[in-house]
């Protein structure tokens, strides 16, 4: 099971702020999780496509496309931050 969170523009565009996902067989890292989510089509395909300004965190640490994703992880997707 993955706990997946969405923030800011992504939360609005995808219509949810969190969901639980049974870890798909072919998902091993951030980029393969994004590819799996894009298969949902529509907003998912548009918002998570390569080249969009999307950032990810795994277990609350900033992540790269090749950061591993394992069962039990908390994975978050969000746009570039704008605090301060």
């Amino acid at each position: 099971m993955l706990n997946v969170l969405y923030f800011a523009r992504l939360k609005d565009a995808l219509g949810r702020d969190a969901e639980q996902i049974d870890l798909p067989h072919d998902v091993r890292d951030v980029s393969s999780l994004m590819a799996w989510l894009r298969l949902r089509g529509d907003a998912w395909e548009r918002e998570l496509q390569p080249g969009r300004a999307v950032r990810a965190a795994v277990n609350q640490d900033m992540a790269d496309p090749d950061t591993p994703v394992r069962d039990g992880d908390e994975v978050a997707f969000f746009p570039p931050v704008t605090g301060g």
Partner: protein
Amino acid sequence: MNATGSSARTAAGQTSVRVQTADFDAGREIAALRAANPAIGAVASFIGVCRDLNDGAAVEEMVLEHYPGMTEKSLARIAAEARERWDLIDILIIHRVGRILPTEQIVLVVVTSAHRGESFAACEYLMDYLKTRAPFWKKEHTPDGSRWVDARASDDAAADRWK
């Protein structure tokens, strides 16, 4: 007051990180740090304020979203990194979330040290991090509707200086 955060006293001083909806009194926070330690010779501070105009649009209000848990964790870590780089006494970071009106304060960073170079550098380092790596997002409400604020390329350039 809805606040989360952490506070750790070190031999030299204290690191405090607070994420809260309530406004803060910058003068009182600075005075409290100074009163606690007669070794303080320098106090550098920065206040980020909600402007009434951003990229030419009139801002009526702003809503700040954050990632609870990751925010506090990332701020505590960057404060620890600043202590490794510079000889500091206190670090205080207060970042508001939720609804904020123009002219209201958004963020306060205060760094104290014996000499001024350290506190200036660390204060700017922490602000650059807050702007580019800490999970906060601003949504502005203008007469034309609401919009998520885009990240500024100049903020990334500022953060890259420290690498």
